[in-house]
């Protein structure tokens, strides 16, 4: 049983540190890429310094989805693939909350694929981190929707046969207003991407290639210089008027983002797309409420329902 109450509480208003934010010891296999994602997330929260009680971490099911147990914030562990609609309820039910969702490639792109599309198109204010290991980790090595053709899994012992999805294209297409890509071996980059995602007002997604050392070793070596791979960052437009800036990537340019998404493996890393103009569902619903209440002149709940019943007489 947890010894949660034994440790002395931090003084009220104390800055959030990794120590305060640490909860259960992660149950991941030694060497799992997810450890680095967790370490980066602590750094993100240290930088953001949100009020402790306003942070919520939620997840579906999978190795990666165990994340909320390891972060000492309000949070929870829902069912496989459905964390996003749950998080939409949190975000729309508590507009002052900072909602983070963590999950795997199977959780997000397979069983939860439809929810991803719809949460994205509605632009609910949520930050979503997909820890993509291109395999089903928790269930021990079945083909995932991002497994490359030829990957030998227990469900495709001869090597995966089906075309994998392209996560960046999928995310862009569904209407996510912030789409970034990172790699678990690049802690600083990961931290920066998650930080920017958290600060984005809308549905923001960071896909992090996070190696499953147990079931898909070396999956992302092609982007790890140490292993002979290429780590290529997206050169973002600085809007400095310089000649070389013209060739840089404009994160507000959807077509350019799709082009980046179409690059061959391992592709580039960084922010693919950012749309600061589309309004969030949070804002749209708040406005609907404000406008409606203007019409009812701020009548009390009792008066409103009484008026409804009066019409039924």
């Amino acid at each position: 049983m947890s010894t949660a109450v034994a440790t002395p509480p931090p003084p009220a208003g104390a800055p959030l540190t990794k120590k305060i934010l640490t909860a259960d010891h992660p149950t991941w296999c030694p060497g799992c890429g997810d450890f680095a994602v967790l370490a980066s997330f602590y750094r993100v929260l240290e930088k953001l310094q949100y009020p402790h009680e306003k942070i919520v971490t939620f997840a579906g099911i999978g190795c990666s989805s165990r994340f909320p147990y390891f972060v000492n914030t309000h949070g929870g562990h829902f069912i496989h693939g459905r964390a996003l609609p749950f998080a939409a309820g949190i975000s729309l039910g508590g507009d002052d909350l900072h909602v983070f969702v963590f999950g795997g490639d199977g959780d997000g792109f397979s069983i939860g694929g439809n929810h991803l599309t719809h949460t994205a198109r509605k632009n609910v204010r949520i930050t979503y981190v997909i820890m993509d290991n291109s395999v089903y980790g928790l269930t021990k090595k079945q083909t995932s929707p991002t497994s490359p053709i030829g990957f030998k899994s227990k469900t495709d012992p001869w090597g995966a046969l089906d075309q994998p999805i392209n996560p960046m294209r999928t995310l862009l297409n569904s209407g996510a207003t912030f789409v970034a890509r990172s790699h678990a071996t690049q802690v600083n980059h990961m931290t920066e991407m998650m930080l920017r995602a958290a600060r984005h007002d809308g549905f923001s997604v960071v896909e992090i290639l996070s190696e499953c050392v147990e079931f898909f070793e070396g999956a992302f070596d092609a982007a790890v210089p140490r292993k002979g791979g290429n780590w290529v960052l997206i050169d973002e437009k600085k809007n400095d008027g310089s000649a070389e800036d013209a060739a840089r990537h404009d994160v507000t340019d959807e077509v350019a983002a799709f082009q980046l998404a179409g690059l061959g493996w391992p592709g580039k890393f960084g922010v693919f797309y950012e749309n600061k103009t589309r309004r969030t569902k949070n804002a749209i619903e708040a406005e609907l409420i404000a406008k409606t209440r203007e019409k009812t002149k701020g009548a009390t709940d009792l008066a409103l329902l009484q008026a409804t019943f009066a019409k039924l007489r």
Partner: protein
Amino acid sequence: MVSPNTPESPGGASASAAPRSIKDVVIRLAGNSQDGIQAIGGFLARLAGRSDQDVMTYMTIPSTISGGPSIFQVRMGTGDILSAGDRADLLVAFYQHSYDAHIGSLRPGGVLLYDADHVKPAEGDHRFTNVACPITTGTIEAVGGTAKDKGKNIYVLGLIARIFDLEVPKLTQLIRERFGGKNEDIVRNALLAFDAGYAWPQNNLRDLFYRFEAIDRATAVSGKTQVTLDGNSAIAYGFLAAGVRHGAGYPITPWSSIMEILRTELPKYGGVFVQCEDEIASISTALGFSYTGNVAITGSAGPGLSLKMEALSWATMAEMPIVVVNVQRGGPSTGMPTNVEQSDLMQAIYGSHGDTPRVVLAPKNVEDCFYLAIEAVRIARAYSTPVLLLTDQALSSRIEAFDEPDLKALMVAPGPDRTERPADFKPYPLDRQTRHAPAGTRIASGKYPVVTGLEHDEFGHPTGSPKLHSQMNAKRREKIKALAATLPPPELGGDASGEALIVTWGSNYGPAREALERIRAAGVAAGHLHIRHVHPLPPGLEEILGRYRKVIVAELNDEGVYGFGQFTTLLRARYALPSIVSICKTDGLTFKVSELVAGVARHLGNATLESLVSQARPSPLAAR
């Protein structure tokens, strides 16, 4: 004119006979869905609500998108109206197909009023009083040629108003309320159609004028203002009264109107209703709302309820309050989507994986839809548990009048309790009721809780401990048992012991009460027990069931492989009484009183009672 009631000199004599007194009447309007016959029913129901009459309606809607045959049945009368009536006393047939399909529902001696422009009744059928009325041409003449036959419904309303001596000022007031706000022409045309319909019987019917018996005010009228609405609206308004400000759903007949009302109403109350991509997302979003301390609702009909089952299990495990409405319709699968059935009971109670003790409530009539919606939310909050509100297609569209609720006394303030929780806060204490700290709440210890679907310790952290799993299962079970112990005894009518106890749940309440009276009138000692809290069951049932030779459970589902309906099966398992038997049917319609009397007669082996059913009861409208 083929009417035997045509005056000797057409157009000349006026209605001579004084109106005959009747206690109640069943009017069936049969036409197409675009004829606005539901509107006639609505007007009559609301008129009754504003008068001394009681009323109940019954409607079938076609499952096709527009058009198609549709009926609306209204029963109105003096005293308690418990069911929509087995058979009609007055059939208004708009078309030949309406006549063909519904003439069989008319009681002997009843009145067939048909549109002479469209219907040709069978020759030589003298069972009924046939009245040929040129409804279509009459309407066109009244409203003017361009309006085509729009307004026929209001013309017919005028006819009915004259025949049954209804309160014209109140009806015209209702017409103004309904069409006012729109174009003035529409109100004028509606009133012209009404007047034309109202005038027709005066010149064309010799007899056939009725008046409802005067009511014994002291006993029959509560003196309270009546409201008239359908069951789905009552549920939606019940949620508003209960302080529900959040919900999510996906459309499906017959649940959709609840979500439509809430989507429209909630912004006024500062709330949010989300239309989701499917039923799984809907319950997930609703649970997310509940997690922020805003107890939320979702709902669906059978197929959608199946999709919610995994998340419902999570709600039991995580002890998250939520109310799930299920408007039952004919199943399995898409089944009979616009017909009534009570075949989702097992799904509601046991449909999820794992041991998932949860609460299932079933409203008995439209008024009860309102009050049980409030009760469902109260239980969900108090016991931090999922609660299913199991209603059905018949209740969803039925219009009834009932006492206006005392909203002042009922309103519950919404809103999460974010007061800081003490250092010893645990989300899942073994010795106490779970009370979640909504996201956004400070915890004095600085240790924040996780809500989870994994078996967990008291702090919400995963455990593989067999002992804790047993203890937590017990915790989740015991709180439902604690709720059961607080439940009021169910309503028992009729004799306290005897030959037969009719047991019902859900919308079968009314017909069963009426059946009980007929059975007792035939000299059989019988009772009727109606159960609103279907799971967990209220205490004390064992003793009640034991007082009758036969316990006859009437439910709208199949008798199953072993010959017992779903609720019957549960009662047999729970009380182990061989006396418990079923009356089951799945014809997509509510129970007729006669079907229940016949079922009881069969189970009792009572031939006298059985013969009672086969005796045709003539219509009160029958010529003397």
